[in-house]
């Protein structure tokens, strides 16, 4: 019998680093129980979920200084992961708040027990994904969040569109993760390890067959690409975003994308670039495959397709789906440079993207609840029918375009700076051209709100103060972050180093 004392010590330490996730599990179970006990309370599990998220947030604050490799290398806790976890947690909290006021959900159900429970489960999966440093863990975490989101995207199951979305999502997701697992198996065969650190170390010491490594890498990219909606793995995105309840669409477009980016970055950092250095601003790619170029091509494809097709959309949710594809493309540019500055840029971008995108979706939700339509036409004269909503949506769209003085400008600025300073001027130019194209379709909405169908402006749309407060909660930071973003940048710079040493 071997001595298991070192293992138990390690396990106890790991458990301490696992408190936020544990809190999520407890929340999941409590919400499940609460839902069974108080059957009359429509939002009881929602309140539990929100409370659980707040507790998780407190625990995350406690963890701010923790860095370490836990559970025998399954999970890494570092500043980078914690930043992404904040993005996930904040967006989940906001989406729960959106759900409280969603007419779409309440028309269908008197109780929403499973809805909030599954959101907690999804957040748990995403938390795991941000730290996962083992291929099995990555697969497991992706499946955990995916299975929750398959169900959630079809949650309004009496709606045909939602059911269709759910079905497409599950099939596409299953194939993507199947392809990814196959890629994992090839990587395992090449290096004999499932541990990302060990894979990196092995690749550095041995030269392996390039073709195989490329195939494995691309198959794995298909899995990550599916999560972050990168072209050509994006096909599920528009249909699922359109069909799913808008609250879930919002969550998918921000949180699940953030988790996907985190896993992808960590994977590239640990497995495909040289490890063993604590502070290494420029990562050195192992082997002779030019991953910079591969990722840059994906970035160009992603943002170009997203923007060009978005021009043709008349459904707001679908348009925002393509816009979210385009934004994934902008962020992929910063992935392609594969260095710490790029990571910082992505973190900044994600934080701003979270606020502005959730804001846009919130307004889509509000308008759909009031007018019963997600069509662009429903926004005609909105600027006069509900001035505050009109102004807020304008702010969000300008921010999504990336014009100053909004948060979106700062995100884009940092991404472009990181790309240019890494020497990829052509990539930045493509990015800027794409931004110009995106102006067309974002401005189209603003034009509809202010310059079209002014006759029908008679019917005012009013919202409760709570709803307006929620809108302002997102619109004001969008503007403030456009001017005062020092703390965000400092935080991102603090979090940009992905733990890469053993």
């Amino acid at each position, binding site marked *: 019998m071997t001595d298991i004392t070192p293992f138990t010590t390690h396990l106890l330490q790991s458990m301490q680093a696992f408190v936020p996730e544990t809190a999520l599990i407890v929340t999941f179970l409590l919400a499940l129980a609460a839902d069974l006990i108080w059957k009359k309370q429509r939002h009881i599990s929602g309140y539990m979920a929100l409370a659980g998220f707040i507790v998780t947030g407190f625990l995350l604050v406690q963890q701010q200084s923790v860095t370490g490799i836990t559970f025998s290398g399954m999970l890494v806790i570092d500043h980078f992961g914690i930043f992404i976890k904040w993005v996930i947690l904040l967006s989940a909290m906001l989406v729960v708040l959106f759900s409280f006021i969603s007419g779409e959900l309440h028309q269908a159900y008197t109780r929403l027990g499973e809805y909030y429970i599954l959101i907690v489960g999804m957040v748990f999966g995403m938390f795991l994904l941000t730290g996962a440093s083992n291929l099995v863990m990555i697969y497991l975490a992706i499946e955990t969040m995916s299975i929750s989101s398959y169900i959630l995207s079809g949650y309004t199951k009496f709606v045909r569109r939602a059911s269709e979305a*759910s079905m497409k999502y599950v099939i596409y997701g299953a194939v993507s993760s199947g392809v990814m*697992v196959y890629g994992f198996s090839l990587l395992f065969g090449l290096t004999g390890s499932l541990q990302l650190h060990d894979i990196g170390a092995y690749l550095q010491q041995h030269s392996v067959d390039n073709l195989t490594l490329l195939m494995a890498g691309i198959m794995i990219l298909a899995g990550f690409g599916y999560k972050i909606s990168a072209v050509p793995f994006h096909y599920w995105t528009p249909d699922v975003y359109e069909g799913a309840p808008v609250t879930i669409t919002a969550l998918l477009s921000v949180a699940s994308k953030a988790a996907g980016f985190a896993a992808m970055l960590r994977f590239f950092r640990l497995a495909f670039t040289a490890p063993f250095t604590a502070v290494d601003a420029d990562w050195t790619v192992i082997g002779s495959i030019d991953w910079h170029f591969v990722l840059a091509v994906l970035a160009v494809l992603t943002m170009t397709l997203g923007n060009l097709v978005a021009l043709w959309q008349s459904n707001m949710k679908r348009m925002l789906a393509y816009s979210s594809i385009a934004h994934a493309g902008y962020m992929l540019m910063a992935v392609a440079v594969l260095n710490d500055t790029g990571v910082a840029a992505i973190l900044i971008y994600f934080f701003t993207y979270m606020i502005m995108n959730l804001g846009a979706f919130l307004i889509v939700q509000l308008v759909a609840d009031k007018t019963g339509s997600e069509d662009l036409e429903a926004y005609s004269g909105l600027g006069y029918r509900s001035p505050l909503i009109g102004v807020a949506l304008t702010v969000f769209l300008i921010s999504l375009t990336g014009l100053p003085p909004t948060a979106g400008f700062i995100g884009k600025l940092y991404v472009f700076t990181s790309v240019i300073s890494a020497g990829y001027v052509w990539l930045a130019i493509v990015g800027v051209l794409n931004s110009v194209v995106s102006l067309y379709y974002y401005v189209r909405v603003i034009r509809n709100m202010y310059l079209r169908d002014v006759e029908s402006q008679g019917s005012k749309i009013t919202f409760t103060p709570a709803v307006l407060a929620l809108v302002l909660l997102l619109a004001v930071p969008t503007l403030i972050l456009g001017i005062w973003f020092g703390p965000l940048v400092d935080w991102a710079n603090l979090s940009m180093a992905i733990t890469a040493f053993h």
Partner: protein
Amino acid sequence: MEIGLSHYLIISALLFSLGLYGVISRKHAVMVLMGLELILNAANINFVAFARFGGMNMDGQVAAVFVIILAAAEAAVALAILLNIYQHFKHVNLDEVDQMKE
């Protein structure tokens, strides 16, 4: 000829492709799910074969265990979703479930 690693890998590659063919070509959603199972099994054969020929590296077998667990969970959820589709469309032919497009 000695049965080596590559024999298993070829089986796995063929099974993987068969699974994909099934996913792409069958109308009936349940058959698509069967194709998916083949894909995952192909990956599993890889894991186990690499484990065996990589010096009995148990990581591969453990990975296979997890893939099996997840395949089960995924199948359960996918079938539940298909039942729901059946409620709406009275069939589960994937090529006729295409209301949302472009």
